[in-house]
């Protein structure tokens, strides 16, 4: 059983890696977007799914990663790889400087504080001349979708491997303990502050790398799109839709929802967003613990699964 699972995963990876060699340009471009969104959902999973802190600040990491690459390549004429490192450094610095005070907040208050930080970052970057202010920056173009696709895939594998490591490491258990009962975790000797900040930084690293790849691929960025808060909401939806606090759930959620939204927007352009919203509402009501939980429990409970979810949370 366990061997079979590994064979399946390796086969799926091989198929995914081969897509740029037989798929159309449209498919590859869709793939890059879906993979990067999956990386973001997986990154959010570390702080949101495992540590239980609903961060709305992960789009800040994404923006810092984008601007790290853009500033390094445009203003300092450095290679792409250096830009990625610069972006990661910015993200980690942000996670430590602002994570320390903000991670003291709980529940809604943490969510709102990170939301506010994201708003502040848009305004600050819009006023920095090195970041091109409101107008943004244009990067040197590189027409190699294959490269961007494979880079995104490698990043997703790295992010997923990290989350897999969480499920069997002392650090990961510490995060889960914090999510379930923070005081309890502290009593049991978990250094909660350190663990939370590290989880925030770790999720930031992956978001920043995804932002860097996206910036070089799109070759243009401005503050409003780089620090877009709806992107943060997207990663939360994808992670929660798939199953927060599971290894493959967020990836699954990102792939399924990207496909749904792509199909909708090609079939019924004007109302695609409307349907996306409806899917979210219905999903939250009937499968509040995500696709991963649905797949695990549906076999034993059948259609009663949905009714039981309804009964559990209604008043």
């Amino acid at each position: 059983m366990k061997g079979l699972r590994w064979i399946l995963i390796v086969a799926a990876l091989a198929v995914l890696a081969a897509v740029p060699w037989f798929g159309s340009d449209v498919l590859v471009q869709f793939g890059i977007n879906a993979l990067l969104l999956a990386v973001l959902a997986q990154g959010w999973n570390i702080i949101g799914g495992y540590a239980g802190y609903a961060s709305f600040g992960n789009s800040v990491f994404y923006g810092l990663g984008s601007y790290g690459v853009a500033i390094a390549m445009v203003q300092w004429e450095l290679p792409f790889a250096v830009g990625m490192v610069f972006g990661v450094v910015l993200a980690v610095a942000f996670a430590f400087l602002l994570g320390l005070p903000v991670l003291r907040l709980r529940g809604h208050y943490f969510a709102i504080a990170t939301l506010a930080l994201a708003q502040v970052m848009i305004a600050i970057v819009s006023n920095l001349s090195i970041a091109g202010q409101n107008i943004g920056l244009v990067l040197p173009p590189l027409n190699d979708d294959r490269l961007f696709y494979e880079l995104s895939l490698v990043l997703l594998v790295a992010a997923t491997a990290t989350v897999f490591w969480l499920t069997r490491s002392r650090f990961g258990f510490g995060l889960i303990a914090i999510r379930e009962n923070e005081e309890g975790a502290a009593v049991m000797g978990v250094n909660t502050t350190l663990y939370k900040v590290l989880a925030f930084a770790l999720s930031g690293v992956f978001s920043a790398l995804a932002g860097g790849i996206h910036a070089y691929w799109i070759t243009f960025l401005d503050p409003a799109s780089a620090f877009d808060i709806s992107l943060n909401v997207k990663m939360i939806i994808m992670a929660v839709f798939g199953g927060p606090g599971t290894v493959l759930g967020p990836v699954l959620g990102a792939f399924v929802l990207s496909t749904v939204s792509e199909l909708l927007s090609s079939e019924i352009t004007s109302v695609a967003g409307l349907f996306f919203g409806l899917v979210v509402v219905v999903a939250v009501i009937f499968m509040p613990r995500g696709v991963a939980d649905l797949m695990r429990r549906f076999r034993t409970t059948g259609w009663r699964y949905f009714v039981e979810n309804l009964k559990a949370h209604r008043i």
Partner: protein
Amino acid sequence: MDLLAQILINGVLLGGLYAVMALGLALVWGVLNIVNLAHGAFIMLGGYLSWHLYTYLGIDPFLGLPITAVVMFCLGYVLQRGVLNLIVRAPMFNTLLITFGLEVVLTYLAQLAFSADFRTINPSYAGSSIALGPVVVPVARLMAFGVAVALTVGMWLFLLHSRLGRAIRATAQNLVAARLYGVEPRHLYAMTFGIGIGLAGAAGGLYGTVSQIDPYIGATLTAKSFAIAIIGGLDNPLGVLVGGLVLGIIESLTVLYVGATFGDVASFGVLVLVLIFRPSGLLGKTA
């Protein structure tokens, strides 16, 4: 000095409007423990409703406010009774997500129904203003401020003295106990959400007389309402009024002395600082 006085007046007038925007959000958050990410979208809908009443039926935006509020109240009641009551006891992520889903739906519906063009409600007195010594007070803004303060104080009196208001406060404190005393939670939750959305609708009508409405203003207004609710606290409408005034004045001062693009930095910066130094909110309940 005259300039400073003018800026302070502008800030106060703006702050009153901010307070009504946040009032409904704070009520729903405090009683139902739902942070309504669609709150700004409801404000936007209220604005459009008011605009249609004025443009097609010629109803003055201030006289039309009760109509807007009642229609929005009904929408809120039905939504809570039919949809949100199903997930009231779900984890925080889920309530955030479902209200975000509602925000997306409302924004797209508005875009389909009203197009993406921005609208302004321009009654005949929109351009006129009163001179108070060196300071100029625009009439429409002053009226919006007056209505805003009246609504806030009215809300405070309602929660304090009416039967329904007391039931709402009791539920916010202890649902089980309130139930034992005969409060029917499904109906009460729907009433509370309805009142919150009705207030959002009224705020939208007022907003339309002093600023522009388009289908996408919701998210920013939600974020601002958050900031005000946090600064002011959740359990007292007068606290929300203080929060609105603080934010309005800070924003106006920042725009004057630092630069127009820093208005949002100031308001959200204040929010972050309040959260860091008073993690449970300035006057609010603990998380």
